[in-house]
């Protein structure tokens, strides 16, 4: 189990916590409608570069925290983020060989999927759905991806 000790567990914890804060910090409305899912972005990073540090549990828990925080249906973000993490983990070996800019295409797809799952659950549970500007969020997220990946990458020694 000396392998497990090298996993950047604390880095995962703190970066996800920071992402959670960035996700819910109050912003003016025009900014907050295009605010990308920072939690999903950070989770994608860890799923690619340290898939065993958090497993599926950490993404799921982060999503659940987001649900409680935003007062959404319990587990809607949890499911969406866990799904994204699962796909990223399954493809992590292939994604690691790509440049950050190439990865951002994948990130765009994943954020769209994340948004789609949340949107579907919101519709199913009868909550009013947020503005159509939400579909810009994945685009913004994909553009931010190289910076976020570099930033998060500094928290651990990459092998």
């Amino acid at each position, binding site marked *: 189990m000396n392998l497990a000790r090298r996993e950047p567990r604390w880095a995962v914890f703190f970066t996800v916590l920071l992402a959670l804060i960035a996700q819910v910090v109050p912003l003016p409305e025009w900014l907050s409608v295009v605010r990308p899912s920072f939690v999903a972005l950070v989770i994608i990073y860890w799923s690619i570069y340290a898939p065993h540090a958090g497993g*599926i549990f950490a993404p799921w828990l982060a999503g659940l925290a987001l649900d409680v*925080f935003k*007062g959404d249906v*319990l587990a809607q973000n949890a*499911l969406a983020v866990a*799904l994204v993490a699962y796909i990223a983990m399954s493809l992590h070996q*292939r994604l690691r060989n790509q440049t950050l800019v190439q990865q951002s295409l994948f990130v765009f797809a994943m954020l769209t999927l994340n948004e789609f799952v949340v949107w579907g659950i919101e519709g199913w549970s009868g909550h009013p759905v947020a503005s159509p500007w939400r579909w810009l969020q994945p685009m913004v997220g994909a553009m931010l991806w190289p910076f976020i990946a570099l930033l998060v990458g500094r928290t651990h020694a990459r092998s």
Partner: protein
Amino acid sequence: MAVFGSATSRSFGGRGPSFGFRFFCYAVLSVVLMYYDRHGGFLDTARYGLQAAIYPLQLAVNSPSAAWNWLEESFTTREKLQAQVDQLRNDLRAQQLVTIRHAALESENATLRGLNAAMPDVIERRLIGEVISFEFSKARQRLLVNRGGRHGVYKGQPVVTGDGVLGQVFRIGPFSSEIILITDSEHGLPVTDVRSGVPAIALGTGDSTSLELPYVPQNHDVKVGDLLVTSGLGRVFPHGLPVARVTKVERDPTQLLAQIHAVPLAGIESDREVIFIWERPGHPAATATPEALAVEAPVTPAVTPP
């Protein structure tokens, strides 16, 4: 799509079950949680605990603005504070002038109604809470306040400000509660027009400066400038709390209903303090008691005839 299979993930570590299996477990768990969050009541206790767990984070997120306010308050000049005190003193005098006749009017009212003594106020107890954070979006108009179950706050409790009705408690944690504002697009509030007594329902629009009264027939007497108060019919708010003032009445002859807009009296985006109220049970202006509302429980008469 072979990469999605469990074979690749298993070849990587060989520790524990594959990602696919684990994801499947969490997905099932999520769906179960969602179902019970929607249909069952017992997840409320879980949420209550989770709210407590998340509370420090909520405080942390809003600490920058809180710190800014604190700094601003600590560095206000003496003159500014003095001006504020003078202003408050003036306001108090004005209020005193209004209330000085209140006692006399109340006993007069009681005599007219044939009561022996004036009724006590419908609001029995109040609690002041501070706003921690807010959300004023089209989909949601909510406040997070630093009072919760530990302070006796309950779900569905009316919340007001000095100027009018603000909303009701939507979700509680031990130390905090979420308030759904009357301007939330999912909120409806039964009101009456003070001048004409016309009943209406004030719906939130998702805009914190306007309410809509969509179900008032054309010929009902509602005018611009009318004061709307709670009617006490919604089982949440006691009767007679000021809510809004009518700002626009459109009567399109081809429509059955009038289009009425009103502006809430409570300064929804500006107030940093809110008041939770407990109404006096059995008061004529109070809403029906929970016992009387319970469908299963037999209604016990409050006064037994001699």
